[in-house]
């Protein structure tokens, strides 16, 4: 992976939640910002999401939950990613997630979660900066 290759993002919908407007809007916006975006579709298990992330060798996994199941499902996705040696990916997401839950998930490895009203531009810029930071660090190590 070179520092200049396209950023690869998996946008995932874990659980039974059917609200996909946000996930799809963000997915489209990230594509418009030049990223390679894979969208899982609805009703995915944490296991399936991690599997796609590994197969597609993504830099970023972004999850969306508006059903209140984030505290149950976000940690499971993280565990499934770790199991597949994907612990290095940038983890992010959004939905209807109370602030204190965002903080708890941050401590569990979710770099940043975005709430309603966030401009997609901000999300794209943040992802680009984070991935470049990580790629830079990898470059220095090798």
């Amino acid at each position: 992976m070179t520092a200049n290759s396209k950023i690869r993002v998996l946008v995932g919908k874990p659980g039974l939640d059917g609200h996909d407007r946000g996930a799809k809007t963000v997915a489209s916006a990230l594509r418009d910002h030049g990223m390679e975006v894979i969208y899982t579709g609805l009703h995915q298990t944490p296991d399936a999401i991690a599997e796609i992330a590994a197969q597609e060798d993504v830099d970023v996994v972004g999850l969306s939950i508006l059903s209140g199941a984030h505290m149950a499902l976000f940690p499971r996705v993280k565990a499934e990613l770790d199991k597949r040696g994907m612990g290095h990916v940038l983890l992010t997401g959004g939905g209807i997630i109370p602030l204190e839950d965002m903080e708890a998930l941050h401590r569990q490895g979710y770099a940043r979660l975005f709430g309603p009203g966030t401009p997609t531009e901000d999300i794209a810029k943040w992802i680009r900066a984070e991935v470049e930071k990580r790629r830079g660090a990898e470059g220095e190590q090798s």
Partner: protein
Amino acid sequence: MTFSDSRSNVRAVDARAEWQRAFDEAKKRGVEFSTLSGAALAPLYAPEDAACDPERDLGYPGAFPFTRGVHPTMYRSRLWTMRQFAGFGSARQTNERFKFLLAHGQTGLSTAFDFPTLMGYDSDHAHAFGEVGQVGVAISSLEDMQTLMSGIPLQDVSTSMTINGPAPILLAFYIACGERQGVDPKLLRGTVQNDILKEYQAQHAWLVPAEPALRMITDVMGYCARRVPQWNTISISGYHIREAGSTAAQELAFTLANGFEYVRRGIAAGLDVDEFAPRLSFFFDSHLDFFEEIAKFRAARRIWARKLRDEFGAKDPRSWMVRFHTQTAGVSLTAQQPENNIVRTAFEALAAVLGGTQSLHTNSMDETLSLPTEKAVKIALRTQQIIAEEIEVAHVIDPLGGSYFVEAQTNRLEQEAERYFQEIARRGGVVAATEQGYIQREIHRSAVAYQAAVERGSKKVVGVNCYVEGQQGPTIELHKIDPAVEREQHERLARLRSRRDASKAKRALGDIRDACKGTDNLLERFVAAAHAECTLGEIADVLRAEFGHYKEPKIL
């Protein structure tokens, strides 16, 4: 609207040209003058912009084409039903919320189910992990339904149930619950959403593919026509289409197109259109664009009436009527400065009332953060009561009828909907258009366009892209679901399965399997299975095994 003679016509043309000159010369604000859905708006509407024949296009309230309302008296006889959507946690917790709402003057019940229930899984299914009781109440069995309605005599309330894929099963639980209370199904009043087409298009809680799902819907229409005659068998819903990002015109067009499909299916199943069409009801969003929304409700009534009478040959005027529930727009609420949501909701609710809604849910200010607290729900209900009791708007029927602007918007929306009907027909009907992902792509396109408009600032959202107060946490108290709910549901289901007559339950499931392969009415079998204490998931598993799973088309 026409002018009386050619001389006044000439004067009007001159006057208009004069105004136009004055308007063109003046300085204007540098903003985009369009509806919330992006339709261009003129600065002024005059009679010639609102071409309409009052007799043909408007009529009188309670008479074809119902543009001005479905009842001759509208709110002078009866106010709209104040129906707050509620459901969370266990059946017992939601039962308490129902009683709280009834005690504060609410006049009908509306049930929100959690995602496992919406998808036809019992609370103890692996897929239900973390979702039990979260966005609504968990109902896995007749026993849960009895707890939900305990102390509420079913002959005295009307109950709406927002459920679709497994709607016939939940309706069976409700009918059986009534029978256990000693209530004749003929006395049950309420609505089951049961609108599967918009699930595939927008809300995404389905059970089986379209064809068997549509067969179950016609089974519900047939069964209820005979045995539960006061029940609304489908609530044809634009709400979720709009919330998923559609424009007002798309909401109108796709909702009505879905409705026409149900009518076709009912007729194809051998039912007389006037036997079931009077029990079809509708459910629309009321968004922030005040006039566009009012026009949308009026256009919906006119389009449906014309199609049902002239294309489907319905003779009973009740078949021609769009009776509808409205919910204010959840998507219009902001997490930033959440108290402002009370104001947004009030305007949206007012549009619904001026548009002639039959029932109304007003959202609570905290719903972008969590499920609503009791305090927030009470303010939302009080908002409706203020509209009903204090501001004197409910006295006059269709008060905006004849407004050049509102009539012009009503015409425009009708024309835009008609263009969509033609495109859907060209694609082989609404089922084909959905399976092709066409409708989903249209909705997505509008959602993306709106987001872009907000981000470039051409559409304003107070607290989000203007009048921003900077980063801050929520300033209001939040409602949390107790994780114990999930565990208790597991225990309750385990007790149920060990307590019931296993062979009776097995037989009832076998009867459902046979009906799936044949043509017997499935709702009848579901009612029998409910009495045999079969669970939602067990019944749904039979359907999934017999009919297969729905596969979402890839649109992105």
